[in-house]
């Protein structure tokens, strides 16, 4: 019984640390705005997105047919996604003191607005936005991408 209690407790602790993002190094940003159905896919699980939810590296973010979402990453990158869109954050590290910076995001389909942040200023060669047909490199900027069907 005691062991089970411990297991439940540690499971809760792990869950708590994920939602509250106490493991700061893994937390890379925050959801600021959500309309209707938007999901995060994290470690194979679907999580309904909500305002102030923390974002982790390697999250996939997916909007439904009438969903949209906006979020801000630690380096000031601002990304928003229209309906039926999906992106994956493959890499994000923003640690100028350790000279460790990279941001690679991959869009599968949909529409997005992308404001680049400080990584694009400090280390432009470390930032890449990939789409199925081309890769976008940037020098401090704002752009829009549509990718996929229709």
């Amino acid at each position, binding site marked *: 019984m005691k062991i089970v209690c411990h297991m439940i407790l540690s499971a809760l602790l792990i869950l708590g640390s994920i939602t*509250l993002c106490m493991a*700061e190094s893994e*937390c890379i*940003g*925050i959801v*600021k*705005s*959500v*309309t209707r159905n938007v999901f995060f896919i994290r470690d194979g699980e679907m999580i309904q997105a909500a*305002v*102030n939810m*923390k974002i982790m590296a390697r999250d996939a973010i997916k909007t439904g047919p009438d969903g*949209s*979402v*906006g*979020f*801000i990453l*630690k380096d*000031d990158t*601002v990304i*928003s*996604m*229209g*309906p039926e*869109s999906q992106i994956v954050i493959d890499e994000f590290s923003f640690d*100028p*003191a350790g*000279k460790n910076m990279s941001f690679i995001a991959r869009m599968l389909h949909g*529409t*997005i*607005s992308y*404001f*680049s942040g*400080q990584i694009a200023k*400090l280390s432009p060669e470390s930032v890449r936005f990939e*789409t*199925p*047909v*081309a*890769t*976008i*490199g*940037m*020098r*401090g*900027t*704002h*752009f*829009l*991408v*549509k*990718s*996929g*069907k*229709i």
Partner: protein
Amino acid sequence: MGKKRFVFILVLLFAGFCGCSNRSKNIIVLVPDPDGSTGRIIVSNQAGSVEIDTAYQATSVPDKNSIPARPTAMNQEEIDAIFSEAIAIQPTAPVHFLLYFENVTTKLEAGSLSILPEIVDTVIARNSADIGIIGHADTAGDRNYNLKLSARRAEAVGRLLIERGIKPEYLEISSHGEENPLIRTDDNVSEPRNRRVEVVVR
């Protein structure tokens, strides 16, 4: 009647003209930053690349084996037709505040102390649950000492914000040392504007 048909044909021609099937499939358009300036993007794949440095210029890419098209102008109406939902939900850019300290202390300058209420107001207005506090140093003196001093200054600012009602769990305190200067200098340069704590309200 005749007029309507004419319009219809025009639309068809227009659709044909922009190579509908290809152009509308994958589009990348450069738009201005909020401050009015425009950056630069390079769109590339295995077939080649194209650079865009003018606002409202767009390229289309039929597939990964085709070179991105020569950029052409895209007007606001065309942009809205495709991107209105993504643009409508776009969060406003995070707000940055800079705080300065009395020399070699963790005591805020009077002018910086008076900015604290403004930071608290911004946190409330943005409903922010993500506030970064980042210590920065100039390049004068020992790199390690600077890193530690700027970290202590960031912690001091964290305490001041908690005293003013900001939830501790919303704060993320870190130090960039001398690696992320506001004003670029050579090494070993005393630059007061680089000895700062930055508060980012997301």
